[in-house]
Each structure stands twice: as structure tokens, then as C-alpha cells.
């Protein structure tokens, strides 16, 4: 399956489809839900007649279960959903983390809780992405803010899922998923494939040390892999009662992500060094970006990845500015971990512009808030 190369004018969700194809997706399982459905529909089209499989499952639990199964068959797999479906997937997300299965989950966020606002954008699932399943675990999550990033960060989601054997998330929203814009697909995409057991090759996936990310024992190759969500030792021994085994396993799963934050995190800086810095992500960063572009008193740190928390850029920005405004489409979620890092960096004034209801904060709303803070 080849990705189309060149320039296109299309929808965010369609760009995600192209990104998946470009990454070499071989298995997609989905269940219809607004506002992510176009991704399933697009892949149903694009995977037809290729060596990839499109599958419409009976519910979202089945979708994520099927893509985990497919990943153990050795292929790149993905599902796409929105709030209610994302909630259903939580148990299996923990399973993927514990069993170290590379998978990609796209969540085109809509307003919750419950059925909420099916057609409206929100950023209400950012905490659920990291904390939705039970127990301690780490994941990787990206937040696109444009059609181009729907493509680019889908590719990154696949790359990092493969490299770290972890579920990776594309946290989009109804606004970005449905916006139309230009997509430019480069001639040579940088693609990472998982480090497979029994195969050595020069590859990016081999940068991470073996003691943090073990080579992947693809099924059907005689590895006699024992894959389980139960506490297990390195040699696959199942040890649900053993204190040490559990400590070592869960700590490693956490460390392999947290210790590689610098490799994983992506961000964009506009006017660094400004006295006032806005920190935002996804479609709620669009208004702030316009403000920062026009007003030299204001800068922007736009997070392109949310998990693991990009502590380094937040710290750096916070240690150089007087005040921070966090903009997001929820009642304050990323605000708290960002504030924690900012306080550590010595920035005491951290405020929140939160907007729910389905529309990202407009530039004038951002300016209004900044005036209230005495920033402009």
C-alpha cells in the first residue's frame, strides 16, 4: 500500500487516513462515532484491495482488542473513536500498556461527559488518555492543530508506538478533524518499525536500550511468547503474587517513556522570551497563535505532544516569563500539571482560559483574558 505523494486539499480526518497509510497500516478496526467516522470510512476505502484489513467490529472494546491481536500478528494497527467509544476502550488500553503492544488510537474529541455534544469539539479526554485505565502506566499522546499535523502526528504516533512498544494516541478534536486545509505529503516519510525479536537491523527502534524496551516476539515465529496482562517477569514467567516482579515491571513500563521524554516530546514556540506566555494545544491554540503573532508582548508554547508531559519546554518557558496563560477546551485539565512545572520553575502567576461548549477560544477572548491579567 503506497501513500499518495504531493499536495492535497482535504479534511483533517482524511489527512489522518493518509498518515496511517503512509505509516504502513495493515489493520484497522472501527465502530461508527461522530466526529471520527470519516477515518473509518476513509480506511475502508483505502485499505480495499491492498494487503491490509479493514474491519467494522461490534463495539469499541472489540475494536481495540482486535487491533491488539493484529499487532501481535506483526502488523501496524489502529482504531479511531470519540468520547463514548474511548471510554469503552479503557480496560484494553491498560492491557496494551502492560503487554507492551504497539497500537495507535485516534480520539477525535467531542464534548462530554456522556453523549454530550457529538458534533462539537472539546479537549475533555486529555486526562482520561493518561489516567483512564486502572493502575500506573505511561502512554504517548500527540495533539494536532492542523490538517498537516493530522497527517504528520499520525505518522509520529505509529513511529513512537513501534519504537517504545506502547499505545500511542492522536488526540484530535471535532474542530481539527473536520477542518479543511492543505496537506503536503513528503517524498520520503520517516518510518520506524518495531524492534523484532530475532532480527537485528540498523534502525531507530534500536536506539532504545534493551533493558527498557524488549524486542517484540511476533507470533508464529517460534518464540513461544507468553503475552499477558498479568504481572510477569522478563522471561514471561507469570508472577501475580510477587512483589519484586511487579515493582520491576511497572517501573520499567513507566521509565521507558518518562526517561525518553526528550526523544518523544514535540512543541512549537512563538516569540519565546515574551513576558507573557500562553501554553496551549490542538485547536484551542489557534486563537492564541493569532494573538501571539500580532502582539510582541505575548508568546506561545504550543504543545504538539501532551503525554509524557513535556516538562522541559514548559520549565524553560516558565523560568523566563512573568506569567502564563493556559488555554484549553475543558474546565482545566492540562492546566494543573503545567502549573506544577511552572511553579517549580519559579513562575507564580499561572492562569487558565477555559472554554467548553464546542468552540475554541477566539483571539478576542484570549486578548480579553490577557487584559484582565494585566498582560496587554
Amino acid at each position: 500500500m503506497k501513500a499518495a505523494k504531493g499536495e492535497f486539499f482535504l479534511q483533517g480526518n482524511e489527512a489522518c487516513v493518509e498518515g496511517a497509510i503512509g505509516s504502513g497500516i495493515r489493520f484497522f478496526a472501527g465502530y461508527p462515532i461522530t466526529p471520527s467516522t470519516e477515518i473509518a470510512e476513509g480506511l475502508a476505502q483505502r485499505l480495499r484491495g491492498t494487503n491490509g484489513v479493514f474491519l467494522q467490529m461490534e463495539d469499541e472494546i472489540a475494536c481495540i482488542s482486535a487491533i491488539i491481536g493484529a499487532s501481535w500478528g506483526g502488523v501496524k494497527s489502529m482504531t479511531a473513536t470519540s468520547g463514548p467509544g474511548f471510554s469503552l476502550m479503557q480496560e484494553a488500553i491498560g492491557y496494551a500498556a502492560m503487554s507492551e503492544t504497539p497500537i495507535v488510537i485516534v480520539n477525535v474529541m467531542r464534548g462530554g461527559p456522556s453523549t454530550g455534544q457529538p458534533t462539537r469539539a472539546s479537549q475533555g479526554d486529555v486526562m482520561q488518555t493518561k489516567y483512564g485505565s486502572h493502575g500506573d502506566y505511561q502512554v504517548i499522546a500527540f495533539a494536532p492543530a492542523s490538517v498537516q499535523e493530522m497527517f504528520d502526528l499520525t505518522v509520529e504516533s505509529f513511529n513512537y508506538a513501534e519504537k517504545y512498544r506502547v499505545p500511542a494516541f492522536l488526540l484530535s478534536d471535532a474542530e481539527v478533524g473536520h477542518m479543511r486545509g492543505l496537506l503536503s505529503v513528503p517524498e520520503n516519510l520517516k518510518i520506524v518499525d518495531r524492534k523484532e525479536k530475532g532480527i537485528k537491523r540498523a534502525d531507530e527502534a534500536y536506539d532504545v536500550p534493551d533493558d527498557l524496551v524488549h524486542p517484540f516476539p511476533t507470533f508464529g515465529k517460534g518464540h513461544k511468547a507468553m503475552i499477558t496482562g498479568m504481572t510477569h517477569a522478563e522471561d514471561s514467567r507469570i508472577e501475580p503474587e510477587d512483589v519484586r516482579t511487579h515493582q520491576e515491571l511497572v517501573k520499567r513500563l513507566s521509565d521507558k517513556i518518562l526517561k525518553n521524554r526528550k526523544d518523544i516530546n514535540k512543541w512549537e514556540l512563538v516569540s519565546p522570551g515574551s513576558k507573557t506566555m500562553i501554553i496551549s494545544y490542538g485547536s484551542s491554540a489557534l486563537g492564541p497563535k493569532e494573538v501571539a503573532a500580532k502582539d510582541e508582548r505575548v508568546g506561545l508554547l504550543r504543545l504538539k505532544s501532551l503525554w509524557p508531559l513535556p516538562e522541559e519546554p514548559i520549565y524553560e518557558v516558565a523560568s523566563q516569563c512573568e506569567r502564563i496563560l493556559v488555554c484549553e477546551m475543558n474546565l482545566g485539565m492540562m492546566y494543573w500539571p503545567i502549573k506544577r512545572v511552572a511553579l517549580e520553575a519559579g513562575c507564580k502567576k499561572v492562569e487558565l482560559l477555559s472554554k467548553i461548549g464546542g468552540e475554541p477560544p477566539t483571539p478576542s477572548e484570549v486578548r480579553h483574558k490577557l487584559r484582565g491579567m494585566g498582560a496587554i
Partner: protein
Amino acid sequence: MDIFDFYRKDRWPHVFCPGCGNGTVMNCFYRAFSALNLPLDRTAFVGGIGCSSRIPLYISSDALHTTHGRAIAFATGLKLSKPDLKVVVFTGDGDLGAIGGNHFINGCRRNVDMTVICINNNIYGMTGGQASITTPHDFQSTTTPYGNREYPFDLAELAVAAGANYVARWTTRHVHELTKSMKTALQKKGFAFVEVISQCPVNFGRRNKMADPTQMLEWFKESSVRREKVRTAAVDHFDLNMAGQITVGEFVDRNRECYEELIGVEKHG
């Protein structure tokens, strides 16, 4: 192939309680598998959560021990991503029929090529003996201390109605018949379902005046009626209880096109 070439000898004795029917099912499965000379390395075993679902972890091949109820969904993804791999699912009545009911009926309907062995012990064994969707009417469990008011599911009939290519039901008192059906199931293209009524002496028998596994085997023997002898298939044996009967035999053997054929995935290398 010796039985301990098939199973992981280093994990013996297994965790199952004395007299548990799971071990009997394992014997029959090993016999069926080795008689067919199937390549073990090219077969993957998938389980959900429960005592019965632990069996894949004892087999000397790739095992995917998944979440409660979802084994068939995991197996569907695995099989379609690697069509030349043989996929076998081990599951329990709770795993398959309760929490995983939707995946079960849709698995039968989709007819993906896999063999599903359900060990139906009429109880939640692993969690200590709560009623399941197959606990017979009036029987005791920790959650039905005054007797089960509900009526049980007939998993085999359900599989027939939902479209599985092969469906059989036996008990652990029918080891030869069970082995034969497992062989047929393993050779069948499409969704093949074998239900085994099995004894959980510890958490089912003990509360129902059959604490000794042999009492349960005797019960199976006395209540079993061959499907050929049942006049009307679906209705008569609906009520699986002491006064009623356990219908055993092959329920269906047909060749609906399997999902891989329908989507042309078999050509994928």
C-alpha cells in the same frame, strides 16, 4: 508428540484444583491436535480471563492471555493480520457467554477461521463460585444463596443460530467424542465452536451436593442425551438442570464462506 512436548512441562503441576475438568479438556485437546500433526509453532492460543482461559499459558506455543470476555475479538485481529496462523481460543462460560457474549455471537456471524473451546462449568470458577449465565435454574452459588432464579443460556444453540460453521457440545464424561469433535473443529474452515460441560467440583459441585468430581461426572452421564434423540432441537433441552438434560452431540457442520475468503485476505503473505 508427547503430551509434555505440547504442554510446558516446567509449569506442572498446573494450578487447577484436584478433579477440575479443565485438565480433562487439555488431554482431549492435546490428543486431537497431535493426531492431526498440526505445526505447533504455527498455532497461536488465545484466552480471556478465568480458570479455563488460563490454558493457553500452559501450551508450548505463542499464547495471548487477554482481558475478560474479549478473547474472540483479540483472536479476530490476530487471525486476520496473519491468515496463515492457526488460531485457537480457550474460554469459559462467563468469559464467552456473559461479558463476551457480543463478541461470541458476532464471531459466529463473521465466521472468521478459528477454533473456540468453551469450558462451561456453569459457574464463575476463578472468582469463587458466583452464578454465571449457564448456572442451572434453582442451583446454588455464592450469589444465588436461595437458588438461581434465572434460566441458563444454551451456548451451542446460540452459536448455531449466529452462524458458526461447526458446533458441538460434549461433557468431560465424553472424552472420546470430545476428542473427535475437537479434531473436526481444528480442521474446519471458519468459526468452529466446541462447548464442554465440565466439572468445577470446588465452586460448583461443593454447593450443589456434588463435592466429589466423580459425582459430577456421574451427573453428566445420567443427564446427557444425544442430540439425534431429542425430538425438537431447540426447545426440549433449554432447561439444563438435574431434572432436565444436557443435549450432547454435533449441532451443526456446514461450510459457509469464512470471513477471510469473503474479504480475500488469504492471499496476504
